């Protein structure tokens, strides 16, 4: 089913989901609000917020797009020893392990260049790597579950899985950032 190219048809097809996803994102905003005073005290942690959300959503959407394609091609089975599933899961964790050290050091470096840094680079690195790696594991779980649900309910994974996974990973990214800050940053 394709949507007609009119303002009305496009809005009717996309606005309900968009408003639902907006509410989900307000949920992650409320989590941010819970540690707002810590974020405002340590600028390098505030710099981490958009890049963590962006990388989290991207990790999920890349994995979801690849699993959806494999699903359409019929090369995906939902068994733990499935090569496509295992290979993509490993790649997601490896991507997180490569990107999140740069996220942490980049955030600290930019804050150091533009002002003060009360935290050591190792603390920011520990926060970013811990939240990133745990996020990658959860992103795999969420994506596989969402792709499997789309398959069971006979929905097109392209329409459903990618927006659901991207926004869920956004929220998980903020929650895991919060937990990592509690773990490593003296309050």
């Amino acid at each position, binding site marked *: 089913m394709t949507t007609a190219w009119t303002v009305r048809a496009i809005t009717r097809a996309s606005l309900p989901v968009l408003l639902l996803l*907006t509410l989900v994102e307000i949920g992650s905003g409320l989590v941010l609000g819970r540690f707002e005073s810590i974020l405002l005290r340590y600028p390098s942690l505030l710099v981490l917020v958009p890049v963590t*959300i*962006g990388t989290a959503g991207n*990790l999920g959407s890349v994995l979801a797009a690849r699993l959806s394609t494999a699903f359409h091609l019929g090369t995906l089975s939902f068994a733990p020893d499935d090569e496509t599933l295992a290979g993509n899961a490993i*790649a997601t964790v490896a991507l997180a392990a490569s*990107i999140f050290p740069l996220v942490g050091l980049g955030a600290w470096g930019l804050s150091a260049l533009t002002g003060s840094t009360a935290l050591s680079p190792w603390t920011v690195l520990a926060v970013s790597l811990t939240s990133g790696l745990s996020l990658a594991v959860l992103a795999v779980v969420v994506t596989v579950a969402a792709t499997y649900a789309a398959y069971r309910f006979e929905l097109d994974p392209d329409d459903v899985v990618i927006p659901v996974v991207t926004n869920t990973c956004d929220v998980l990214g903020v929650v895991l950032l919060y937990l990592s800050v509690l773990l490593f940053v003296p309050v």
Partner: protein
Amino acid sequence: MTVREVAVEAYREALPALGASLVGGLLAGLVLGGMRADLRAVEGLLVLVPALLATRGNVYGSLGARLATGLHQGLIEPHVRTGDRRLRAAAAAALANGIVASLFAATAAFTILSTLGAPVASLGRLLGIATVAGLLSGITLVAVVVTVVFAGYRRGYNPDTLVGPLVTTTGDVFGVLFLLIAVRFVAFVLGGV
């Protein structure tokens, strides 16, 4: 393919997009880091930040995907002509949906924070910020998405692979930048901050 081959291929394919979003995200973070005074002054603004950023990705990512599909199907031509009815409708729908979602986010954040008894700026201020930020980033992102998808398609790139990294990178940077401008503009009009 073995597990190793699948993993290596997936890793190589995803790394450029993640690198682009890393750069965009850090730049956005830099702007956000410079907004600490604004975040303190407009209570509840930080709660809005994820929703406003995600709206950019959701709305203009889907505009890009729609344009890519339209190009593949021959429904639209890869040239900007103001008379193209389909292109105009897709751009107008994206802009309208983006602003409606931003206003909805501001209202939801205000309602939830007031119900919880948390300190929050006035609804008028939050709606004003959401409108100005949504309008400015919407116009910019429509221009960026249309230009890059069309130019990429004419040069033989698959527009589908351009859209994701493009929207996440520019969406984050412009999203936060125009949020800053919107906060200052509304403060100028309504007073305060």
